[in-house]
């Protein structure tokens, strides 16, 4: 098939979604450009190639996690257990490797743990009919608690010695780009393909757009829900591995950080509505770039952590307000749970 056919085909499909989001995307793009310009003027070091690569690298992890989150959010769910799954599955794999398992076997077990966690959450939501926010909030604490109680005691788990290749991944680069960025790019392409090209992807949008209609039309609701949370868990595990390889360790304390909110910030700022049925991969990229610029600039400026959080919150509010001014919802089209 011709290249032109593919791009017009997929762009038509989401034309509807794009149209309604265009304004918010525009706003975020403007904000991102503004932040970029301000930081470039304020900080001479900001614009150096080294810093720019460091910037993208540091947020690629966030971006990868946001891809997993986006998939769930598009189908009108939410997964706030991702960080717990990430730290526990990776940390456990490292512990196992140090206690005698081969490293590969340990990595496989870590992956299986993540899958099981996703399966459990999916079952809870699909069959227990628990609201996703509560199910994943509770599951996150359970997973983290299990991990700290039974699997490992230390917060900091180093990459087991003797696996230089693993640590090498985090430092290596491909065509001059750090592997983290390459991984983010590959996952973006993959998710884009899934969302626009596959039956599963289309059904995700249908579920997010109107779950009752999707159900009546014959969507396999429960298997789909389970699949979503298993995918987001595996994505979290992958992100954890990449994070560990570039930092040579995984820090379980991330569970108590604001990381999960940063992921949601990326998703929402990028323009993926929390009420589902909207958004594409490019929204995630946009959100990642913007949040990346913001975090990196503030870090170079040495802004206090609490102030950083304040700024993030204000930016989110600003984006939401700007969106509702530019994009007023009328009474007939608005739905319950609209942001």
């Amino acid at each position: 098939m011709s290249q032109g056919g593919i791009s017009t085909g997929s762009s038509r499909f989401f034309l509807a979604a794009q149209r309604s989001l265009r304004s918010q995307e525009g706003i975020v793009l403007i904000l991102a450009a503004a932040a970029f310009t301000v930081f470039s003027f304020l900080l001479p070091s900001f614009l150096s190639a080294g810093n720019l690569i460091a910037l993208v690298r540091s947020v690629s992890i966030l971006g990868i996690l946001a891809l997993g989150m986006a998939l769930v959010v598009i189908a009108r769910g939410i997964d706030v257990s991702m960080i717990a799954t990430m730290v526990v599955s990776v940390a456990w794999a490292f512990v196992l490797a140090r206690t005698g398992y081969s490293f590969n076997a340990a990595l496989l077990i870590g992956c299986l743990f993540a899958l099981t966690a996703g399966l459990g959450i999916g079952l809870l939501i699909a069959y227990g009919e628990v609201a996703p926010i509560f199910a994943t909030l509770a599951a996150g604490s359970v997973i983290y608690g299990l991990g700290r109680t039974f699997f490992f005691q230390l917060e900091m788990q180093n990459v087991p010695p003797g696996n230089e290749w693993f640590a090498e991944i985090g430092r290596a680069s491909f065509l001059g780009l750090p592997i983290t960025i390459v991984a983010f790019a590959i996952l973006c392409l993959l998710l884009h393909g899934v969302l626009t090209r596959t039956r599963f992807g289309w059904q995700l949008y249908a579920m997010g757009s109107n779950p009752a209609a999707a159900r009546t039309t014959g969507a396999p609701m429960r298997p789909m829900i389970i699949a979503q949370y298993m995918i987001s868990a595996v994505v979290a595990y992958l992100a954890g591995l990449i994070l560990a390889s570039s930092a040579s360790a995984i820090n379980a304390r991330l569970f108590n950080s604001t990381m999960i909110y940063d992921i949601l910030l990326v998703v929402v700022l990028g323009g993926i509505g929390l009420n589902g049925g909207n958004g594409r991969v490019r929204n995630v990229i946009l959100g990642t770039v913007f949040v990346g610029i913001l975090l990196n600039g503030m870090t170079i400026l040495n802004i206090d952590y609490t102030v950083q959080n304040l700024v993030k919150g204000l930016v989110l509010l600003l984006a939401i307000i700007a969106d509702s001014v530019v994009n007023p919802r009328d009474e007939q089209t608005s739905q319950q749970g609209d942001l």
Partner: protein
Amino acid sequence: MTDIITFRRATKEFRGNPAFKDVDFSLRKGEIHALLGENGAGKSTLTKVIAGLYSLTSGELLIEGEVRTLASPADALKAGIAMVFQETNLVPSMTVAQNIFLGEERFFNRLRGINILAQQHLQRLNFHVEPTTLVSTLGAAKKQMVEIARAVHHSARVFIFDEPTATLTPEEKHHFFELMKRLKAEGASIIFISHALEEALAVADRISILRDGALIVTDDARTFTRQSIIQAMVGRQLTGELYGQARGARTARSPGSAVLSLRNVSMGKAVRSASLTVFAGQIAGIFGLVGAGRTEMMKIAAGILKRDFFDGGSIRLGGKAVRFRVPRDAVKHGVAYITEDRKLDGIFEAMGIAQNIFMGALMKHTNPASIITMREARECSAEWIEMLKVRSISENARVVELSGGNQQKVVIAKSLIQNPSLIIFDEPTRGVDVGAIGEIHQMIAKLADAGAAVVVISSYLPEILSLSDRILVARQGRIVEELTVDEATEERIMYAAVH
């Protein structure tokens, strides 16, 4: 007589495409004014401007001779204008009473007080709805009654009813017309939109007809006949196939094998030991008053409502006992249920027309990883868009931007693309214009001729009478009477449904 609402050369465009253009319209004080036109003619859009939902692109809106722009529905309400929308707009997680008093909660709400007031209000309107039930558990007709009750609860000067009678049964329609007359006697002015032309002729003082966004004619209701209305609506003579006209020498199709049979099926209070059989190659019409459990019986058969383990009865599909727990199982067995409430579980609002229809085909297949392109979606749905004449002002319109009747066509196409062998239509022509009703009826007939088993649930007697080969009458959760085409008369059916 003075005008309370006047449009002067009013135009409303959506992204450059006019929904109506250069309309001069007036609503007099104390009249009932029927607004008629085909699907997509611009009726809802015109009235939504009066209700403060949209503002005009050009032209003027005058209220009592003053040029006004209403910025929001709240503004309109302050100006004494209340509207019941075509699509229901209730808060599902609240009770009927809470919905009626929505927007005027006091700082401290006393639930008991609200319930009593709502009870009195509903009783005055002769609507049998329990004020303490949750709106999400109500069927389409009861929701409509709550909407009406909510609107007339405001002491407005202008009421706009957009297809209020589409889901109501004759009994409630009667109460509703009484209500309109009472409001009129109290001095209110009313705009009434309907696709049932007899209703307009019977209750309206004046009639206006829109066609493709232009106001064709406004005149005294007495000067119109059904024929002249249709001619003004479609711009040509429509003859033949319209129901209510060509009835008479119709022979019922002979039954094929039994496709669906329910034996003593029960579920809660809604369905009590219902038994019925549907045959291939025939259309079974189910009539009943609101609350008779017709929708529930069929939703159980289609796996949409799950019966508790304890609820008894058996269902056989094609001779085999089945108990569908999710709609997907039923869809795989060739059952399609076409909903009565398209906004609730019919359409994917944010998606386009082609995607909506294609979703039907998509859901039926099994491999989640199969590759799909937009071109495939457009090709698959094109023939249905063509066949059902789905009309929109632009090809890429989202379904939420379609007129009500066109949304209904999309919902029908989405199910038929699944090529089902048992098709359940729940109020198939709700909100569909006269021309399109004829087309949809022809299509339903064609399905039965081709050997499919068809069930039509309808609260509109002429529809039941002109379509069905067998007529089943439901009351209080069970089927109480079965009539052949020859036996069935309006009186007999109504008698069975009420007594």
